[in-house]
């Protein structure tokens, strides 16, 4: 890990995860991407529990959260995160497969910051992150670091 705060990708579907990562790599981001496969792992990572108890990573700069996941779905993760004083400020982008969805309304109610329709393409993802207001911080920091390298 390059010391940059990671982007947490919570996605159970491998192909969706691959497409999302392709989109992210297309955006030329330096932040490492940590992938988890369900809600339970998401919370374990955030709270440094379970298999993440030994990892010393900092809080993610953004969580890309799939709504439909096994064991514990994205809405429950959202609820837990927003109720946790240590985690509640982390921006969350919900990944959903539908334009019009009751999950979407509930996500807004639970405090989601942006939506991206899957499969994620680069342009759509960039727009969402821009709207979120954290993307440029990410890119800028990544750019500084990459600029300082040579």
């Amino acid at each position, binding site marked *: 890990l390059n010391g940059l705060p990671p982007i947490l990708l919570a996605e159970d579907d491998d192909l969706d995860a691959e497409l999302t990562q392709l989109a992210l790599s297309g955006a030329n981001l330096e932040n490492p991407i940590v992938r988890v496969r369900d809600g339970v792992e998401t919370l374990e990572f955030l709270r440094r529990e379970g298999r993440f108890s030994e990892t010393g990573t900092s809080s993610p700069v953004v969580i890309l959260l799939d709504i439909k996941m096994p064991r514990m779905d994205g809405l429950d993760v959202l609820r837990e995160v927003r109720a946790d004083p240590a985690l509640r400020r982390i921006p969350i982008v919900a990944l959903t*497969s*539908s334009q*019009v969805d009751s999950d979407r309304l509930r996500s807004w109610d639970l405090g989601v910051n942006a939506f991206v329709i899957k*499969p994620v393409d680069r342009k759509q993802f960039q727009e969402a992150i821009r709207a979120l207001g954290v993307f440029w911080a990410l890119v800028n920091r990544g750019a500084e670091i990459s600029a300082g390298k040579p």
Partner: protein
Amino acid sequence: MAARRARRLAGRLAWLGGAFALILIVGLGAAAWKSARTLLAEVRLVERGHEARALLGGVDTSLLAAESARRTLMLTGNESLRKSLEEEAAAALARLTRLEELLGEGEPSRAEVERLESLVRERIDLLKAPVPDAERVDTARSEIARQASAGQALSGPSRLAVRETADAVERRIVAARHEAERSGRRFLILSGATGSLALLLLLAVSSAALLRAAREKARADAERRQAEELSVLYHQAPCGYHSLGPDGTFLRINDTELGWLGYSREEVVGRLRFSDLLTPDSSERFRTTSLRLQLDGLVRELDLDLVRQDGSRLPVMASAVAEYDAAGRFVESRSTVVDATERRRAEEELKQANRRLEGTVKELEAFAYTVSHDLRAPVRQAGAFAGLLRDRAGAVLDAQELHFLDAIELSTRKMEGLIEGLLAFARVGRTEIGKEPIALGPILADVVAEAMSAAGGRRIEWAIDPLPVVPGDPVLYRSVFQNLVGNAVKFTRGRDPAHIAVQARRTSEGEVEIRVIDDGAGFDMAHAGKLFGVFQRLHSEKDFEGTGIGLATVRRIVTRLGGNIEAEGSPGRGAVFTITLPGGGT
């Protein structure tokens, strides 16, 4: 009412007829008595007539004999003849006396009889006159000669005068007898006729009375049989009957209901109120309904729970009518009570079946939703990866390889469209429908604007009425317009310019009717039934693309909004879609 009055009248008439017949019979008896008396008197009169005639004949004969004796005396001078003359004269007078006795006082012929008597006496005096012996023959001759030449007058009343008077007396008597006979005959005829009439009347009256009595009996029998039949029907009916007084106390109750309740009639009638036999809930419902019954006069199909004597419950359905007296006061209620056990059970089963069905429908919807949702991810992924491949390798692929990529992308897009449609369709059943007033105008304007931008510069002439405000859900109305307007735009593709109209009006029932009319490809009404089915299409994919879900979704939405949709069309001449929505707004 009228029948009772007629019966009373008939009774009075029969009584009058009987009394009249009785009077006639009594009168007839009296008349018969009188007739017998008259007959006796007549017989006496006839007898008297005969006797009188005999007496008169006797008087005549005696006088003749006396005259003969006188003549012989005068001729012969034989004084012994005077004795027979005297005897004959006395006999004539005795007969006259007898005649007078016979006729009695006041008889019309009496005067004539008296004249006859004086004539007879005068003649007898002449006959008795002494006859001088010397002159005997001469005198006798001369007298006979005188009698022959000058008639009777010269020697006192002649025998002829006596005979005439006697005849007159006899005529008088005969005339009196004839008169008596005539009046007797008249009376006989009259009384006979009257008697016959009276008998006929009596016969008629008694026959009528008999008939009436027979009819009365038949009617009484029929009434009794009917009463028995009603009683059997009342008590053996498969439903309960009871009547309650104004305070709700049982006045009457049938055996069936008693059997249900497990009470005897003595325990119930006059002792218990109906509400005593109800559960507290039912009792309360019955109380409020009783007030309504007294006002409306009728209560139908009230669900109640009876409590049997053993404490068990019996669900029933009761209907009642109210009875009022002439002054309009509530007197009693009459109820029919039906055992509702089966019905309640059936209702409960139906409710459960409905719940199960609703559950199944929800499950199916959820299933369709989940399946569609999960189907969509791989389809999109396939499309996305095909896009990535085109980005990376597009430059090195030959035309056929690029066509394969096109085919993959086209198929995934089509599959996505189908899945989106299915999701929208399934979503209709999952969405709670709002009730807030929705202005349809702005929604339609949005949809038309979207459709125009998608139509890419085609010429379409729109004619859009102002749309009303209706209760419902904006998302669902948007979906309805998207489908209907989208179809109109799609199927008018061959027209330039195309014409699409949206008309709105309020029906006389207060419903809102919206029509979307186009002059496009239309459809054959023979297949109209397929229009609203899921995945049903009336045009080939080559002519008009589509999923076959749009109109099915519209119909589901309209139905869920409490409305209705109909379609009319003909091939090549356009289509009209009419949706009717419940009003509510303005």
